[in-house]
């Protein structure tokens, strides 16, 4: 459908996922996890009550960064790592826009790491979607800052010696007000997270575990395979205890600050002993302990909303300050500005 046709349609009918698809051929490898993320984004977009022309997708460079080409919204496929900074400018120029960043793990956490943490710190009202395939896809397979230590890639033929980042930790530590995680292969969950992120006012970060079937195939296999998933994933839900396992037979409780896996079938612990997830706790410690599960043997990977808190946004504060000063000083008058300070006449 051409842009024009879509627009004509918009005036009468509610949009559908298709209205958010451009007529460009999608150029990811067949089987790439990016397809699923695109599909979910297109699916949730018409649900948000935001006119199509108010969406802006900004990306850097990487396989995942081609994302904007496939969303029939405004889009900016910029340069490597700079998407959060460009998106900041977009939002500050026009706070009415719904600004989304699509970024790979290299793009967002390697070259773009600084812009990412500063955008989180400022709590700019934008959504940042991390396509974490734990590899540099576009440059054909080097380890990334989320690759596991020891990974053999083209640039680490004897195994990488870098420890990985936990992206959730970085987001929380730098002040992101909404932090979630999901998986490409779990479309329903992914949709739910995207809807939640869209509804959040402030910086919303979603880490998506994404499979790169060419250079890092199977990175999340245990988490997506039906058989193994229940033992490898714990779904976070507000107010619910942390339960996982094929028969919901395992739980996580807290011993002081330390998480412990308990067997719910032995009778020693019951559901009421478990750690109850609280998304809204302002204490960041909670999210860190959850993210830290990845470092612990046998612990499942949490997916869901780690944390959602309310803080004023940078864009909100900026426009409030513009208004306030204008109220205080009156609307700026150029002639007055020219004449500020001492003036004198030459006759």
């Amino acid at each position, binding site marked *: 459908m051409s*842009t*024009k046709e879509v*627009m004509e349609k918009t005036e009468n009918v509610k949009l559908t996922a298709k209205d958010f698809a*451009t007529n*460009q051929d999608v150029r990811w490898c067949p089987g790439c996890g990016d397809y699923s993320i695109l599909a979910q984004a297109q699916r949730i977009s018409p649900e948000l009550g935001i*006119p*199509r*022309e*108010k969406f*802006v997708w900004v990306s850097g*460079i990487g396989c995942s960064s081609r994302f*904007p*080409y496939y969303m*029939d*919204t*405004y*889009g*900016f*496929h*910029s*340069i490597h790592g*700079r998407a959060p*900074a*460009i*998106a*900041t*400018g*977009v*939002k*500050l*120029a*026009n706070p*009415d*826009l719904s600004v989304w960043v699509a970024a790979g793990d290299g793009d967002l956490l390697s070259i773009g790491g*600084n*812009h990412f943490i*500063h955008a989180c710190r400022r709590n700019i009202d934008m959504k940042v979607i991390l396509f974490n395939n734990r590899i540099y896809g576009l440059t054909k397979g080097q380890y990334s800052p989320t690759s596991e230590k020891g990974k053999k890639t083209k640039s680490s033929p004897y195994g990488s010696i870098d420890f990985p980042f936990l992206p959730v930790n970085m987001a929380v530590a730098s002040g992101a007000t909404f932090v979630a995680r999901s998986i490409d292969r779990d479309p329903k969950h992914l949709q739910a997270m995207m809807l939640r992120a869209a509804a959040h006012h402030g910086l919303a970060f979603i880490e998506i575990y994404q499979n790169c079937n060419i250079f890092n195939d199977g990175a999340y296999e245990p988490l997506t395979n039906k058989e193994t998933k229940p033992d490898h994933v714990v779904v976070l839900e507000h107010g619910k205890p942390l339960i996982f396992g094929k028969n919901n037979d395992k739980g996580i409780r807290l011993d002081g600050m330390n998480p412990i896996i308990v067997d719910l079938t032995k009778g020693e612990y019951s559901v009421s002993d478990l750690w109850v997830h609280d998304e809204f706790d302002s204490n960041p410690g909670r999210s860190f302990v959850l993210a830290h599960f990845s470092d612990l043997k046998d612990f499942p990977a949490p997916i869901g909303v780690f944390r959602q808190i309310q803080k004023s946004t940078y864009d909100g504060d*900026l426009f409030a*300050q*513009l208004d*306030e*000063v*204008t109220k*205080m*000083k*009156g*609307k*700026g008058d*150029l*002639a007055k*500005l*020219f*004449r*500020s*300070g*001492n*003036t*004198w*006449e*030459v006759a």
Partner: protein
Amino acid sequence: MAKDFEVQVLEDVTIRFAGDSGDGMQLTGSQFSNTTALFGNDLNTLPDYPAEIRAPAGTLYGVSGFQLHFSSLEIQTPGDSPDVLVAMNPAALKVNLKDLKPGATIVVNENAFDSKNLKLAHYDVNPLEDNSLAGFNVILVPLSKQTAAALEGLQLSMKDIERTKNFFALGLMYWLFDRPLEPTSVWLEQKFGSKPVYLEANKKALTAGYYYGENTEVFTTRYHVNPAKLEKGTYRSISGNEATAIGFVAASHKAGIPLFLGSYPITPATEILHELSKFKNYGVKTFQAEDEIAGVSSAIGASFAGNLAITTTSGPGLALKTEAIGLAVMTELPLVIVDVQRGGPSTGLPTKTEQSDLLQAMFGRNGESPVPIVAASTPSDCFTMAFEACRIAIKYMTPVFLLTEGYLANGSEPWKIPDVDSLPEIPVNYWKDKETYQPYLRDDNLSRPWAIPGTPGLEHRIGGLEKAHIYGTVSYIPENHEFMIRMRDAKVKKIQDDIPNLEVLGDKDADLLIAAWGGTYGSVSEAVSNLRRKGFKVAQVHFKYLNPFPKNTEEVLSKYKQILVPERNLGQLSKMLKMEFLREVIQLNKVQGSPFKSSEIENKVISILGGNNVN
């Protein structure tokens, strides 16, 4: 009653205030400038401060200076060599002595010449006592003691009293040059209204200084510099960075779209950020980014979303922005990049002036990546060129460089305040029409349409990959790539039709043409008038547009047998003229962190033309 003094009328005077960083010399200098401006002289200033925030008192590297040139004629530079030096301590004397005119007057705070300060200034012998200043007119003033005496009875610490002595010195200079105390008194009242003891102290010191001149016999002559015959109008004093900031606000107003600055602090560009951050009620948004890359990137984002976007920096910051500027070239978005140049390479001499980033602006990006360049010639010209940079950026949908430099940025001069209505409108036509829209359609200026997010029906994607002509989709087609490379090049070249021709000043039939750019304007202009007065036939052109060059450049250059290009670098404009016009030029290069003295240019011209050219 005041005694009678000889009053000598002078055409122009250069005075330099020098002391410790903590001595308030910048303030003293600005007050003298201010009063002098109100008095009606033409003037030009040059602050010079150390890289250290507060260097330990008394040290050589902690000396801070403020030079001021004022005249009854039109002037263009802060003066070659001071006629008067006010030296608050031995270090200030030592650092500045070599710059003075032979026979210059030196006003010295004799109380500061104690053994501690002498040692800090590496003086083995007190220079006030060893006859080493014989060639100068040295006036010893017990500045500290007199100030203390004047403030007796006020509830002030010794430290506060010491800090007030600059106003004593200022008062004394006001007396010497016959200027009123009132403007400074008014300023003091505004500044210290809520702190009466400081107000009183400073006023007392000021007046005491003035009457010290009147009542003692240290000076036998007073000087009078008549008001200059400036063009009729309302004036204010303006520094280059202020002028740049205001120029942008004016452009934003005339374009009818909000101004967005994405920036990261760096000397000597930071004041533009400071200035603009005040103008919230003008709708100006300033974003202090995490680094220069985020500064320019946020500006590109803001431009995409329809703001008038600018980014400000100095050389090292510009180096960091180059990749993103390439993105602005490819996406053809309006953006003004200000480079307030300083001494390089690398961190170089951060607080010193230089004009050595021209080639970086011209060529410092990967691939064929043309960007228009304009440069300001004087502090107030920063206003004009900031406005002009915005006009070009918007009209041609392109990033534009505005080059200024530390010397213009911190220096100031009277600015004839323009009438707001006299400034041209900058038409902004965000594209609206869905039927005809294509992201890389071109108008008569070869510009593409500005279609901003939020506009229904114009959803489109841009980016850093090569773009298909008209459609703006990604294109790997070889012929399209070459076509677009030539298109971007042609678009920038086309700006030639839209900028003023070079104007030849001086003798049209000169034996030598001086071609310069940027902050070298003042020195060249003064040199040219001096030379002509001496009988040399010289002409001058000044490049405010460096890419593209004005249309008549080749024609003008071809008229002169010899072309002298004075630059404060190793010959960057020279290189550009050579590569563009295959014209041999004579270079005059000075890279010492300070502007040219006009005499340096004069001497060079004389050495080229020979003494016998004088008629």
